[in-house]
């Protein structure tokens, strides 16, 4: 049985300038309590690796608006005009990665693979500066693995050994990010006793999770 921490304690673990992977897809499946605590402590200079920057007022959008984010590595910013304004104003750097490549680069970072060989992006701006490797006569882009100092996850259920489940489309990037960071912090909708989640339903084994937010009061 492991003890949870508060959202403020989680935010205090994350120094200014840290790199964070944050689960979520247009805000669905993002760890809102940890994000709120990061905004509350006035975090600065963060690098955020995520699918997108959500919308103003939602998920990662709150970090962007509060000026916490110096750099975003994402597949799109189309849903967040604040990110676009900050990028054009030079207040925030944005690196765009095709969504499938982003998922696979994070997976490679967590799985100890040296990179990703993908056909996606060949012949486009996404290929600029990247090696092309031929395998059996077909060209593939070599994309580098991604890791981060922290992964901030949104789970559906957690048990007191920090095993996690995810729900429907709130799953998205959370499981791959759980493998690819030095420190993994999760918040869950529900915390259940150990043994309640069947072994086959666990999507992230608790041994991968360093901290779990205690129940919200």
């Amino acid at each position: 049985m492991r003890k949870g921490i508060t959202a403020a304690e989680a935010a205090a673990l994350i120094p200014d300038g840290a790199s964070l992977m944050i689960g979520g897809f247009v805000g669905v499946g993002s760890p809102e309590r940890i994000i709120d605590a990061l905004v509350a402590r006035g975090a600065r200079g963060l690098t955020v690796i995520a699918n997108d920057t959500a919308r103003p007022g939602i998920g990662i959008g709150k970090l962007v608006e509060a000026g916490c984010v110096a750099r975003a590595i994402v597949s799109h910013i189309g849903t967040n005009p604040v990110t676009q304004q900050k990028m054009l104003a030079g207040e925030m750097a944005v690196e765009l990665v095709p969504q499938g490549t982003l998922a696979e680069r994070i997976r490679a970072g967590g799985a100890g693979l040296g990179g990703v060989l993908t056909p996606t992006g060949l012949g486009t701006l996404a290929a600029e500066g990247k090696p092309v490797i031929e395998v059996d006569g077909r060209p593939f882009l070599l994309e580098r693995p991604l890791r981060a100092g922290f992964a901030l996850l949104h789970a559906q259920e957690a048990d007191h050994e920090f095993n996690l489940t995810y729900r429907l489309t709130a799953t998205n990037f959370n499981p791959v990010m759980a493998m690819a960071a030095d420190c993994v912090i999760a918040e869950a909708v529900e915390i259940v006793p150990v043994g309640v989640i069947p072994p086959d339903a666990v999507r992230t084994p608790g041994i991968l999770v360093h901290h779990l937010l205690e129940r919200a009061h």
Partner: protein
Amino acid sequence: MDTREMIARRVALELRDRSLVNLGIGLPTLVARFVPPGLRVAFQSENGIIGFGARPPEGMEDPNLTDAGGGFITADPGAASFDSAMSFALIRGGHLDMTVLGGLQVDEAGRLANWLVPGKLVPGMGGAMDLVTGARRVVVAMQHAARGESKIVRRLTLPPTSARRIDLVVTDLAVIEPRPEGLLLRERAPGVTVEAVLAATEATLIVPGEVPEMPLARPDRPLA
């Protein structure tokens, strides 16, 4: 019938039974409304679900069940959900039978540009590059022209989404099939002449002897 509905109805005729299909945001989403009766099509949303259905009634939305645009959806019986790595393994791995996407330009080589207008706001490619590269069949659904300029061009002036040649373009004026030898004019919209299509098109089109009118429903199942 507005032109958006017309385009969606024509694209829906490309759906095949028991196929897995991804619809892009905007016009392509409309295609789901016109699935020919009797066809069982599984729709994938790249944020992690196969077998989703229409927006639920008010008050029955689930914050954990949305499409790639963040809009609320429902799950049909037999739906399956999964993470982003699996979702794009399906897309990149050739398991997606068809994707329908919007477009900014298609050129004579059949290349699509649909993610970036240099000098303007940069939305990002999202899943578009993977979809165009990985889907077995790529159908582009778009207006033939924007602000008076043809979107069917000789050569892309916007950055391509993929080096891959797409399979079909359906516009408010025509159905065009990119082939190794060039763009084939397959059909014209109801009431639109071949000459009108050619006049509205910057690219050179290959025009066969007969160019039939675009069907909007399967002959055995007339338009409702």
